[in-house]
């Protein structure tokens, strides 16, 4: 250990001079290099949430179903019959920008570990992805690699990837977003928390060997001029090994199920450092770690490297001495390394040893939970407008049918089948609704219950107004679940923003959190877990503020669900929700006019809640045969999607248009007439919240009307034929075979060659 832990060294590690002074004060003098490296990681933005912690306090986090709120590896929600769901979303943006396949793969690996660490069996993954525009080869390379990596990892694990979203906007060109969400099922009385306990208990490291993977991934150690062997010490890209993770899932769940371990924690960002200090801090105990006992992939690693390595597929367990041999036995059966590397002490200190010599000694609580807090003085960016764009700024295109075809083919709206067909969405035999409708639906085996998931955010709306956009993201996620018949109950979020040290950026962050918080309060969907990813900028240009919302919904009886497909000729098509839609921030504005400007509409949360309740009640009473959220592309795109996805063979089970054979003949068309006060193109393609397209059998119309009560409800027309026809004031604006619409909608692969 040649290097001195001076203030210069600290700054190179990404700490500020004040933080260094604070560290000196805690340590009572100059820290050792190991200590400094540990502080630099734990007090990095990524690990300490120093810019976001005070703001995140705004979220509602409790409720009757919340068994575990934020602060653990995943949030946990009671879903009935003694079952609970653990859920979490996390970003892996920067690793994916460097190496898309491995970056995305290890992102899935990390989030899945967060789930089974809690004692839950991972049962679903979702992915929320953002890239630049597809006409750039680099963006196609990233998209291809990221989707490949997600599939590679999740498919091998046998965790189905059943939902997600993909957007393409220039603002993500230099900084793609790869957010991975996962959820798991566990018994409500079997929650495992990452809390070390039991003085004298052993600290056991399970899984892969430790290499120099991603050292300093969370800080700037990579640029540290350490000594002449810098080249060899450069951090390595993390490579995912899903096979080892699959064995870890089985072995860890076996150990947790058999009460062989006291507690468990995965090694994520900052590796052994964060896992051990957090476990010690939560348990109000100390941990002694013998870094020299850690099995290494590269023999010449130094203690500080070992402590902060981010090698994948590793778990830390606290085991009582009496259970040690049982734990070893399980690991041996699964061919996993299992090494006792330390012990629980009453010192409340994280102590690091290297061949018997103490090389680090840090108060665990101060390290893990008392990182400095920073609040950047914020101000509203200039570009934000509080006026909608005057409608006559944009000339109405002549052929609105052609507009519909163009919008359906726009990468943001087009079917993402190319992506989700690379994912095993059916393994584990729980999938009720595959990708291609509003929400992923799973059953819970041996019960009548079910759960639904979605992940949503419209970054363009959040750019134009982060408060309204974030609020709308929560509302849309809930609407997607309600359209499937599920009751929305909880949120996990991934807040992707630019540099938090900039006041205008910080303002967008504050606004977004406020919008999300209000919506979560109104819709009774507490935030139970989440992740913040800052510094998403390239060449000084930030991404759109992108607060991604992952949401869980529940069913008492999962057989009562529906999807977006029009089912039978003669069914009545309804629009539930207001006749208000805006051009500002819409896909129509961007695709047809090349603009992203104006003022996006605000969600009326009371109305939103009422609309969703009516749809759920209608589904529960089996009045509603199909329901679809009107989001990107507006009413016309929503109607087209209901028609296109009807081209399935078989029953509800086969919500999958068969591209082979004559089944296209089974497409359901629609004949609708829209009564509106808006300009006709805005009525068709404008976007606004709280609007749902649904279909009911004619005999059920009166009952549904009654259910809707005072809410705005328009009869649009009928399911009929194989053509989508839309009329406004006797002008037939769209009159196109569904087959043709489907072709446009399925055209994403053509852009990828």
């Amino acid at each position, binding site marked *: 250990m040649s290097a001195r832990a001076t203030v210069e060294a600290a700054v190179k590690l990404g700490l500020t001079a004040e933080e260094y002074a604070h560290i000196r004060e805690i340590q009572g003098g100059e820290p050792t290099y190991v200590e400094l490296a540990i502080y630099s990681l734990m007090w990095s933005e990524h690990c300490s949430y120093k810019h976001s912690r005070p703001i995140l306090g705004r979220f509602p986090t409790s409720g009757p179903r919340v068994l575990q709120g934020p602060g653990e590896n995943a949030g946990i929600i009671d879903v009935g019959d003694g079952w609970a769901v653990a859920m979490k979303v996390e970003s892996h943006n920067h690793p994916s920008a460097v190496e898309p396949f491995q970056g995305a793969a290890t992102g899935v690996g990390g989030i899945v570990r967060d789930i089974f660490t809690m004692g839950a069996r991972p049962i679903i993954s979702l992915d929320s992805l953002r890239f630049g525009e597809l006409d750039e080869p680099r963006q196609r390379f990233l998209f291809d690699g990221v989707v490949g990596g997600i599939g590679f990892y999740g498919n091998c694990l046998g965790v189905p990837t059943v939902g997600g979203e993909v957007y393409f906007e220039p603002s993500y060109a230099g900084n793609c977003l790869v957010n991975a969400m996962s959820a798991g099922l566990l018994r409500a009385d079997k929650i495992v928390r990452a809390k070390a306990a039991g003085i004298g208990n052993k600290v056991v490291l399970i899984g892969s060997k430790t290499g120099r993977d991603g050292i300093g991934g969370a800080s700037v150690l990579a640029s540290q001029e350490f000594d002449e062997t810098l080249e060899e010490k450069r951090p390595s890209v993390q490579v995912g090994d*899903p*096979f080892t993770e699959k064995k870890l899932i089985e072995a860890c769940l076996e150990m947790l199920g058999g009460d062989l371990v006291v507690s468990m924690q995965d090694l994520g960002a900052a590796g052994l450092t964060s896992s051990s200090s957090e476990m010690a801090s939560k348990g109000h105990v100390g941990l002694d770690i013998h870094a020299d006992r850690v099995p290494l992939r590269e023999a010449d690693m130094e203690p500080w490297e070992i402590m902060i390595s981010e090698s994948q597929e590793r778990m830390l367990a606290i085991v009582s001495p009496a259970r040690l041999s049982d734990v070893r036995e399980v690991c041996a059966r699964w061919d996993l390394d299992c090494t006792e590397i330390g012990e629980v002490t009453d010192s409340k200190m994280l102590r690091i040893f290297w061949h018997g010599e103490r090389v680090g000694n840090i108060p665990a609580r101060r390290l893990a939970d008392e990182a400095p807090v920073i609040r950047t003085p914020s101000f509203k960016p200039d570009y934000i407008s509080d006026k909608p764009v005057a409608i006559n700024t944009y000339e109405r295109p002549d052929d609105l049918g052609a507009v519909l075809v163009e919008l359906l083919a726009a990468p943001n709206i087009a079917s993402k089948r190319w992506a989700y067909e690379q994912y095993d*969405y*059916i393994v584990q035999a729980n999938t009720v609704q595959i990708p291609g409708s509003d929400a992923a639906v799973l059953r819970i085996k041996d019960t009548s219950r079910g759960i639904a998931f979605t992940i949503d955010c419209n970054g363009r709306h959040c750019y134009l107004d982060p408060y309204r956009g974030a609020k709308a993201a929560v509302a849309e996620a809930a609407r997607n679940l309600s359209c499937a018949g599920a009751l929305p109950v909880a949120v996990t979020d991934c807040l992707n923003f630019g540099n938090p040290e900039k006041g205008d950026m910080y303002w967008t962050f504050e606004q977004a959190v406020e919008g999300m918080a209000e919506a979560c309060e109104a819709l009774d969907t507490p935030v139970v877990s989440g992740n913040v990813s800052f510094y998403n900028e390239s060449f000084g240009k930030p991404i759109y503020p992108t607060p991604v919302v992952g949401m869980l919904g529940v069913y008492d009886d999962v057989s009562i669900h529906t999807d977006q497909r029009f089912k039978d000729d003669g069914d009545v098509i309804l629009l539930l929700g207001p006749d208000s839609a805006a051009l500002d921030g819409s896909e129509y504005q961007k695709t047809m006019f090349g603009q992203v400007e104006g003022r996006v509409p605000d969600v009326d949360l009371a109305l939103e809640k009422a609309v969703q309740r009516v749809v759920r009640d209608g589904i529960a009473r089996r009045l509603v045969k199909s329901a679809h959220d009107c989001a990107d592309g507006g009413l016309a795109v929503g109607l087209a999607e209901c028609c296109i996805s009807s081209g399935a063979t078989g029953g509800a089970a086969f919500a999958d248009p068969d591209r082979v054979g004559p089944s296209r003949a089974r497409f359901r068309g629609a004949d609708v007439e829209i009564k509106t006060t808006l300009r006709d193109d805005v009525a068709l393609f404008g976007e606004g919240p709280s609007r749902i397209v649904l279909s009911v059998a004619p005999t059920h119309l009166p009952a549904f009307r009654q259910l809707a009560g005072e809410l705005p409800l328009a009869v649009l027309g009928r399911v009929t034929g194989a053509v989508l026809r839309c009329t406004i004031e006797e002008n037939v604006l769209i009159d196109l075979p569904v087959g043709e619409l489907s072709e446009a909608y399925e055209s994403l692969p053509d852009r990828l060659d």
Partner: protein
Amino acid sequence: MITVPAVRFGVVVFPGSNCDADARHALSTFGDADVRLLWHKDTSVGDVQAIVLPGGFSYGDYLRCGAIARFSPIMQAVTEFAEAGGLVLGICNGFQILTEAGLLPGALLRNTGLKFVCRYVNLKVENAATPFTGACREGDLLRIVVKHNEGNYTVDPATYTKMQANRQIVLRYVDARGERAAGANPNGALDDIAGVCNEHGNVFGMMPHPENSVEAELAGGADGGKIFRSMIDALRPAVPA
């Protein structure tokens, strides 16, 4: 009342198998089947009457799919079981293991699209006279999900000729009308082959996943149940009239 004992199935668990639980669950939906799991390190299959090698990524599919798994101790026992005429069903990775082990002819190459493919396929039952398809009629269509990276079946011409003569091509990918068609084959497999059996007809491998297709209320539908039904029927002693 005469009760017929349930048919005893063994589902092998290799490290990296991920459809073992699904296969067990699928069989458990049949009232006349019993299931137990067989561990890859076991050296005996016990008294089971049929064996399922499940889908997944045994040993991560590293090196080649099925290449390492086929050396597992259990595979020696499975081979003896098969040679004695026992029914062995290999699904996806299980199919790959059976070809690697030489219990089925041919090999499974990378999909021509070079991508993992998860989608519904239509399968035509080309031979209903096997213990795995007895509950079907010839020409029946089964709609089941495939999900794999290496399902591109290949075999040398001489062997293929013999296989055809011997009716070892059991399932083919077809379109919704039951016709062979471009686009119906998800992986580039030779002559649209989706499933083959050995010469004696007691070892069968298929790429699609019948174990994810036994419950009509799930997305996978129930067509795959016919494969298990066939096996159970083939093994159950005839119920006295």
